[in-house]
Each structure stands twice: as structure tokens, then as C-alpha cells.
């Protein structure tokens, strides 16, 4: 498996958010590409972003900072970042850092509508 990859799903009609799959590890080596790709996606004025982190195997503090940056940016425009299906390990990192209080985290697609306040 690749150590890091991003899968940006195309905008679909009728879906009020963009979906991006984050795969592999998000650390100081991979975070730059991650930030560039997602911020240029947000440059198009996307208000709601769904990060599917089902396949995110590791996140370092640099990765957490990047997620914070995205959250800040989206909330400035009344948008929202939602994280989908973190692994137990990644969820634990979020919990220890207290980020389960900040990030919207859901475990299934059916919870998305509520998470995005749609």
C-alpha cells in the first residue's frame, strides 16, 4: 500500500459536500501535499468537506494541525469539516488530545446529514 494518498471525489449533483478519502499516514512528510491539495479544493468555495479517514493509519501532531487549519477555514465561512470512520487508533489520538470536542466525527454515512447540519 502507498504510504499516503488522497482520493478527491468529483462533485456530485445533489450532494452538498465534497468527499475526500485520506489514505495512509499523515505526518510531517505527507502533510504539505495534503494541505495544498485540500486548500486548493477549498479555494473553489466548497463549504462542506467530508474526510473519509477509514484508511488513515497514523496521524502525527503535524497532521492534527492540518485538520485544525481546515476546520478553522471552513468555519469562517460557516462551513463544516466532518471526519468519517476513524480507526480506533486514530480516534484515540483525537480523544487524548481532546479533539473529539472540536472535530465532528461520524461512523456511518447515515449520520452525515446531521453532522453537516443539513
Amino acid at each position, binding site marked *: 500500500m502507498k504510504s499516503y494518498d488522497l482520493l478527491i471525489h468529483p462533485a456530485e449533483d445533489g450532494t452538498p459536500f465534497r468527499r475526500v478519502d485520506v489514505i495512509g499516514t499523515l505526518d510531517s512528510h505527507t502533510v504539505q501535499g495534503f494541505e495544498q491539495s485540500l486548500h486548493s479544493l477549498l479555494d473553489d468555495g466548497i463549504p462542506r468537506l467530508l474526510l473519509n479517514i477509514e484508511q488513515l493509519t497514523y496521524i502525527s*501532531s503535524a497532521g492534527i494541525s492540518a485538520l485544525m*487549519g481546515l476546520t478553522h477555514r471552513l468555519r469562517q465561512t460557516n462551513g463544516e469539516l466532518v471526519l468519517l470512520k476513524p480507526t480506533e487508533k486514530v480516534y484515540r489520538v483525537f480523544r*487524548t488530545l481532546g479533539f473529539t470536542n*472540536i472535530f465532528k466525527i461520524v461512523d456511518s454515512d447515515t449520520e452525515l446529514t446531521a453532522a453537516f447540519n443539513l
Partner: protein
Amino acid sequence: MVWILFIFLSVAAVAIHRQRRAILALTYELGNREREKNAVFDFLNRTGERITTSLDVTGTLQLVVEFLQDATKADAAAIFLRQPDEPDVLRAPVVLGFFPPLHRTTTERLLAKRKFLAERARHDTIRIGEGIVGRVAELGKGMLITDAERDERVPREASEVIPIKDLILAPIKIRGETLGVLVLVNKREDGPFSESDMSLVTAIADQAAVMLDLVRLYDEFTAKQRVEQQLQVAKEFQQMLLPRELPRIETIEVAGFSQPALEVGGDYYDFIDVDEHHLGVVIADVSGKGVPGALVMASVRASLRAEARGNLSPREVLRATNAQAVKDTKRGVFITATYGVLDKRTGVFRFARAGHDPLVVVRPEDGELTLHEPNGIALGLMEGEVFDLLEESEVSLKDDGAIVLYTDGVVEAMDEQKRLYGDARLHEVLKNTAGEPPQAVIEAINLDIEAFAGVREPHDDITIVVLQWRRPAAQDAAVEPESTGGAEPLETPATDTGT
């Protein structure tokens, strides 16, 4: 007859004239091309000497690619370079025109729109050996493809968005090492690309290699110098801020340890006299490294010290420290900390946890561990209600056991295979050293990390603080189990690898 001859001659004359004009134009063009080429050569030669950082390099590469795109009349052009930190990966710092995807990736689906293509080419990474660009980098041999549609080396799926007609790929090579690949796509007029286009690109690629090589050497040199300097300053600074001596308390034994990593992080621990009967204890870890990390650490330490005096609520102290940290730190930098107030008379430790690793309590009799992880987010990120979720919790050194605080450098210590030391192994050491003096516990942890990771500089700071109630009768009460092997299976609250 004469008129036939006349016509023939006129036609011939016109033809000759045209031919001559064409030759003239061609000579002129060649001269132009030659001049431009020389100009670029000169430029590259000069810049190679002058350029001192990789930032300048991108500007130069931009000019090189622009020149090549223009000279070969290519629709699109790009330069792919090996990444210094990831040598098996290519990335394109410069992409011009509508650059088609030249290798398959999972992001393909995004790319219905042309405007994304340059963007994508810039952000995408190509592994050495992957796709046509990766192969040129791997083999170090250029390719001139004049009929891309029929050439197997050109990926089919790429042509859906932008059809590829012809291609030039030239390796940027020096001393047998490929630093990158120059790519030109689709000749606009007089296509396809010719051998002479190819040789121009190859010549420029060779020149660019010399320049990049120089810059790389310079970069390595300055980076090393810079890192060493930073390292020294930050290390000294950090050491200066650590407690020079441990508090002496009749009832409580205290030990602390902090070892900065090669790339200094911003760990610290501190003991603060809150009032006559209370000792403030803090352990913290700044997410940034180097001098910036050490500076953030210093400012957090200063504000926490100021807030702690006379204040018996760890929650309030952390709230005030957070408010200051939010103002002081750059967006994205955060600090995890556990701060508590220890009552020296009763041994009760009242604490709050700002996103820090769990606090572990070790029962001295049998080594049973309890993990405390009250709610709370890291410092420096947010003020207001989210931060105010911070909870206070209480542990009694006397009744519950010794308190162990640590930073994630402990559980994230790595062995050569990059496996993590992990919570489980730390817990094992804590169980086995239950009841031993704090200093001995810290030494045992360090020895075990060393046994796991080998003797080398840790990649993250390692900081440990241990607090223990002094038992007046400890020596003769024989509570210290020499081998705790008899202890029943110790239940550890569900906990896995840390951050």
C-alpha cells in the same frame, strides 16, 4: 516554346526565391534558437553559481521550462524533480499549459476539468519507475515519442481529457544520478517533435542538472549548519528552563527527567510553589520543534508560573494559560499539558489534562495501574466553551499510589524497524517497578526504551515525572515486592498507542 520556357523559369525563380526565403527564415530561426539557447545556457551557468536556496531555484526552473515550451512550441511542459526528503518520489514544481495526466492515480476521477490538470500535476507525486515519467527517471534515458496514440509507453486513460500526440521526456542527470525529468507535450505547429527538439531539451536538461546539483550541495551544507545551530541554541535554552533541582518535601518523593531529541521539541516539566502547602506540577509537550518550539514552551511556562501562584484550581490555571497561548502561538501550534496541584500535607493531587497523555497511577502493593484521562483539549487552539470542557480530577498519592506523567516521546520511541515502544510496554515497566522510588522508576523506563530502540538519539523529546508518597515505614514494611511476578493479571484500561 519560349513562353513555356519563360513560365518554367518564372516558376523556378519563384520556387527558388521561396526556397531561399525559407532557408533564410530557417537560418534566422536557427540563429534565434541558437542565441536563445546560449542565453539560457549562460543564465543557467550564472544562476548555478549565484543561486543559494531552493526557493530561488523554482524561479529559475520556471524560466527554463518556459523557454523550452516556447522553443519547441509545446502545448504543455513540466519539470519533475526528486524530493530531497523522499528520494523515490517525483514532484513537479513547475507545470505550464494543460498538462495531461501521465500516470494513473486514484485521483483520476477528479480530473474532468482541464483547469485542475496543472494543479494536479503540481500536487501529484510520481514514484520512481511509476508511469512513463517515473520510468524515464528510473532508467535515466530520454524518450522522443512522435506518435503517442500508437505508442504503448503512453498511458491510454490519460488521453481522455487531453489527447497526447507527441512527447519529449529528458532525464536531468548528473554523475549517473537522475535528479528529475523534463517533459514536453504536444507540439503546436509543425509537429511532431523532432530530433532537434529532443537534443535541445537534452542539452538544457544537462545544464539544469549541473545547477540543481550545486544548489543541492549548498542546501545540504546550509541546512546542516542551520540545524546544528538551532539545535544547540534550543537545547541550551530548553535545559535552562527545566528545574535545576527537585523540590524537597517531607511527605512526597519527586523525580523528573527530560531528554531533548536530536531535533529538539518543546517538552518540559516544572514544579511551582503555589503556596506554603501546595506544589504545582506540570508536564507539557509543544507540537512544534526547534527554536520555535522552545520559544512556545518558554512562553507557556512563564504564563503558567504566573497563573499558578496562589491558585488552587488547575482548571483555572490551564484556562488562563490557554488564553495566553491562543494569543501567542501561531495557528496550528498546540501544547498538550497536564497540570495539577499537590497538597503536600495530604498527598492529594488535583489535576486537569489539556490533551496530554493519560496520567497513570501505580498501586505500590501490586502494581495495578489506573489511567486517568479526564476531558480537555490541548492548549493554544481555542478559547471559550470548547476549552471549558476541561475537567478536574483527583488522585491521592497516599491512598491510590504513585503518579506517573510522561510525554508521547516515551510511547512513540521507535526501534530500527520504526515500531513504536507503545503504551503496553511502558505499563509493563510500571507494573514491575511498582513501589520503587521515583528516580528508579524513571531509570527503569529509560533503560527499557534503550533496550527497545537501541542506544541512539530519540526522535522526540522524552520527559517523565514521577510523584510518590513517602512511606515512613517503607524500608521495613517490606511492601516493596522485589519481583512483582506474583501480582495478579493487571487490568489496564483500554488504551492503545498514543499520539
